[in-house]
């Protein structure tokens, strides 16, 4: 079992390497040079060339990539921002917890809201409760995160004055962004849990549990839900990944100093070290999350656990 986990963790490394190669290449391919973006537009060509040379931009692509990776792996140094000259690693360490907190509370809210209501909806299929929630969740699942954010901002902050509309400092700043992220994903969790439950309830072993004399509550919440939750675990993990992406947009809207905002700025300015550092970090987090989800699933479902112990699959 542990061999499998180790193997999976190690496999992330080549993926990240390949990813960084591709991203580096894409960014490098873009028209224009960083010096031209950084220096004011009237600067002379010599000034531009000089800055480019200083930044190492005139070297061939492969050499630049190699230098970057060497510094990253050996010194854990992600370089300095071409624009602000602040070390990228430092910014990432400050900003990463912010984004992770946002994503984490977002998915937590989504799961807490969506899963129990999904179960309830499945148990009361086609009754009013079910129809109402299915309708609401269809609506929320179709809503863009940033628009929900604006509506929430409008109501809670601008009209009612309950919460600050931007910046970051206290828990109050987290409420609206988290809510904007949690709602659409709660809708996804609800729909998925509901359909998983509906399938689970129809399984034969549920009938066996009833025939044993188990009360309906035990049948639903122990037998049916236990099995229904398995695929929900995977979906939650995938949603977490999408949520990280959503956090990027939300940070822009609520002006939250996280990695998302940092990435967007870096990408707009073609600030290569910033883009590289942020992308690699966020992708690594994403891959690790998926791995953790897979492992959780393996522990939950004894049939999958058996496969992993045999070591064959994947």
């Amino acid at each position, binding site marked *: 079992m542990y061999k499998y986990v180790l193997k999976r963790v190690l496999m992330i490394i080549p993926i990240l390497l390949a990813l960084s190669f591709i991203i580096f290449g894409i960014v490098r391919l873009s028209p224009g040079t960083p010096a031209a973006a950084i220096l004011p537009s009237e600067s002379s060509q010599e000034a531009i060339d000089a800055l480019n040379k200083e930044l190492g931009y005139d070297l061939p692509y492969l050499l630049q990539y190699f230098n970057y990776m060497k510094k990253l792996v050996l010194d854990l140094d992600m370089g300095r921002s071409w624009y602000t000259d602040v070390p990228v690693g430092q910014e990432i360490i400050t900003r990463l917890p912010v984004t992770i907190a946002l994503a984490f509370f977002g998915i937590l809210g989504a799961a807490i809201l969506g899963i129990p209501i999904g179960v309830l909806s499945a148990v009361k299929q086609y009754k009013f409760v079910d129809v109402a929630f299915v309708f609401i969740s269809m609506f929320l699942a179709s809503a863009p995160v940033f628009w929900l954010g604006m509506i929430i901002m409008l109501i809670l902050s601008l009209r009612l004055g309950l919460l600050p509309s931007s910046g970051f400092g206290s828990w109050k700043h987290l409420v609206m962004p988290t809510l904007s992220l949690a709602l659409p994903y709660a809708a996804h969790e609800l729909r998925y849990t509901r359909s998983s439950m509906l399938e689970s309830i129809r399984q034969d072993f549920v009938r066996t549990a009833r025939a*044993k004399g188990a009360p309906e509550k035990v049948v639903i919440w122990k037998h049916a839900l236990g099995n229904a939750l398995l695929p929900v675990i995977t979906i939650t993990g995938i949603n977490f990944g999408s949520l990280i992406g959503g956090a990027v947009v939300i940070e822009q809207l609520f002006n939250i100093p996280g990695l998302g905002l940092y990435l967007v700025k870096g990408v707009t300015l073609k600030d290569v070290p910033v883009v590289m550092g942020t992308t690699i970090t966020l992708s690594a987090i994403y891959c690790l999350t998926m791995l953790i989800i897979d492992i959780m699933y393996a522990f939950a479902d004894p049939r999958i656990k058996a496969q992993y112990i045999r070591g064959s699959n994947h």
Partner: protein
Amino acid sequence: MNDELLILKDLEVVYKTDFETVHAVNKINLTIHKGKTLGIVGETGAGKTTTALSILRLLPHTAKYKTGSIFFNDEDLIALPEREMLGIRGDKIAMIFQDPMTSLNPIMTVGSQIAEAILLHNSDMNSQDVQNKVDEVLRLVGISPDRKNDYPHQLSGGMKQRIVIAMALVCEPELLIADEPTTALDVTIQAQVLAMMRDLRDRLGTAMIMITHNLGIVAQICDDVAVMYAGEIIESGTMEEIFSGQNHHPYTTGLFGSLPDLSSLRSRLSPISGLMPDPTNLPEGCSFSPRCPKVMEICYTEKPKEYCFGTHCIKCHLFGS
């Protein structure tokens, strides 16, 4: 002492949807005696499973008990509140189903599933006693207690069905309802499981309802037989009366006649022509009339009464007068 354990009296069960009404069980009468085994035989769709589920009130929401009663030890199960019904299921009356591959919860160990059956009806038993009982019943069905921490997917089909039987018998119910318990198993395993069931039945003195479409199984394990067709019991009696008696319902004759016989020189099987009638639209008169080789005028218009020769009863106009 009254040895009648379960009496189905004029039981009628329908499934009602917005579009149609399915007449699944049409006023049947059955009696199961203590310690005896009744076989319910019939084609798929005859209403056997609905009858079984209706005894334990495990029918879906669309099902309605239209008329009749189900007396278990003189108590009408249909009128019983659900809370008390919970005490009956698994404890006094147990049921096992057809497909062992899907009957067990895949994420619970088999031991814990058997333990659940015990604890549901003996909530104050201490855990050591529960485990001892689990081990005991596992041995009873021929499985080593070492395997109680295994998950269902680690067991073969035959072993899974033994676990299902163990779960059903662990509280020593007075009646076991078995709905085609061996149909999904290999033929050789079928024989083993059946032999085991017969042995347990004898040892524990459990009454049994064995639902099957396989006449061979009926011959091996049943004391009494009821033949079901289109939701009605069209013939019933002891095993000898049904298998070797003189008089039979034409459907029963057809059932036996459609069996392949290695010793005979016939080159073709003789199945019963036609299909069972649509349960949403049963024919007037006798339900078998469209297919009956011995049909008479009266069969199309009047429902046949039951005519009994001692314990052997047949619902057919041929035996009237």
